[in-house]
């Protein structure tokens, strides 16, 4: 299932937290060879993990990490402005309507639809919270993958050549994209909404009761 967890609540899911940071080390250090910090316990962390981001995590049936990504609003410190400003012609992206997505990660044995599920989670955030765009930096090989997931970014800036090229992309919300991504991911929209509600609380008619009802209690 999908879970949406702020850093300050991640300690409630110790197995998920541990396996996510191990999988991030495996993906970004071991497989992609990025210059990331791996600590003595084998976990990958960076300074943005210290800023209490919101993680979206695919939890496998055994309670461990199947894939994840991380969100922070661009009104605070974000990678696109701190490290990749040249990709947007020196214009910092800054708006409460734009969140940055980083550390898109899949565990080695993740099943086929985990990437799709994470993409759907991103759109669930957009449609429930009124977020208009996500921004993110990725290497060029991801372009094809995003297309297959049904949610392609607009590439607004590039650095480098060929295999080493990195791109700044912007994903824009539309209601149509929700249906398409859900279909590609093989997840019913009501299931996705139920996972979202499990983390953020469901909109229930009885939640905030009308005055008359309470007065009669």
């Amino acid at each position, binding site marked *: 299932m999908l879970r949406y967890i*702020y850093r*300050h609540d991640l300690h409630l899911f110790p197995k998920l937290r541990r396996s996510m940071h191990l999988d991030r080390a495996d993906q970004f250090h071991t497989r992609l060879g990025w210059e990331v910090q791996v600590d003595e316990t084998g976990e990958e962390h960076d300074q943005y993990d210290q800023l*209490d981001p*919101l993680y979206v995590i695919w939890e496998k049936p055994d309670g461990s990490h199947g894939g994840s990504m991380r969100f*922070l*609003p661009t*009104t*605070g410190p974000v990678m696109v402005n701190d490290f990749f400003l040249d990709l*947007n*012609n*020196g*214009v*910092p*992206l*800054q*708006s*409460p*309507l*734009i969140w940055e997505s980083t550390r898109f990660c899949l565990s080695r044995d993740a099943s086929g639809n985990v990437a799709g599920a994470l993409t759907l989670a991103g759109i669930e*955030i957009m449609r429930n*919270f*009124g977020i*208009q*765009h996500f921004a993110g930096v990725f290497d060029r090989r991801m372009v094809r993958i995003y297309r297959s997931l049904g949610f392609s970014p*607009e590439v*607004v*800036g590039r650095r480098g050549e060929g295999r080493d090229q990195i791109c700044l992309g*912007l994903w*824009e919300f539309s209601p149509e994209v929700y249906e398409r991504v859900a279909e590609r991911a093989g997840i019913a929209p009501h299931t996705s909404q139920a996972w979202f*509600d499990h983390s*953020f*609380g*469901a*909109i*229930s*008619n009885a*939640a*905030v*009761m*009308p*005055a008359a009802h*309470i*007065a009669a*209690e």
Partner: protein
Amino acid sequence: MISRLMELNQYIMEKIQDLDQILDLLAATRTLPSLQQIVEKLTEYLQVDHAVYHWVDSLGDHYHFGTYPSDWVERYQSEEYVRIDPVVTGCYQSFHPVDWRRLDWSPRKVRLFLRDALAHGIGNQGYSIPIRGPSGQFAVFTISHNCDDSDWDALISNYNRELLLLAHFFNRKALEFEPGRLDTQEISLSPREIDALTLLGQGQSRAQVAQALSISEHTLRVYIESARYKLGAANTTHAIARATSYGLIVI
């Protein structure tokens, strides 16, 4: 002198018709009482019962302005409702907007609190936007209203983006009043943002501007979005007007 200004403010306020003007007043304001008036005007614009901005600064001091009745504010403090108010728990340390219906109102203490809030006319619906500011500053901007679910859903889906922007604009203004922060942060636009707003201000279409700057229309939209946020503007036209009046662009 001050009362003359207040009168002038009053006069201007009465003429407010749309969000642009509310935001213009917000940008121009230098006094806390005028923030109170602006938030009152905002409730008229949104047609909701209440709007409240609550701020905890980097020293842990609280401050708020808004339309909650004063007897409710006093009661909230004397009963120490901050300890059981699920909106506080739901917003603390978060950065996503919180629809009150998503919170847990089931514990008995919370139900009693809710009954009291309803009796004071706070409303059965609410939408709260938490904001993380610099150096541990934290704020929540809330609107609340009495209506059924479908009306509330319609209101939120109409205004959720404006509300996010408004919350941050109020917060930026409040930060100007923080002790030790006398210098108002100057707005600076990047060269590309200046080019984009200038060309748009000259009446060129988005497609023409994108072509002139050799960027996609999508990229242009993002430049405009970030300029709009920096300028505290409601929309593109408003952002151009703002940039012009600040002398940031020349048309």
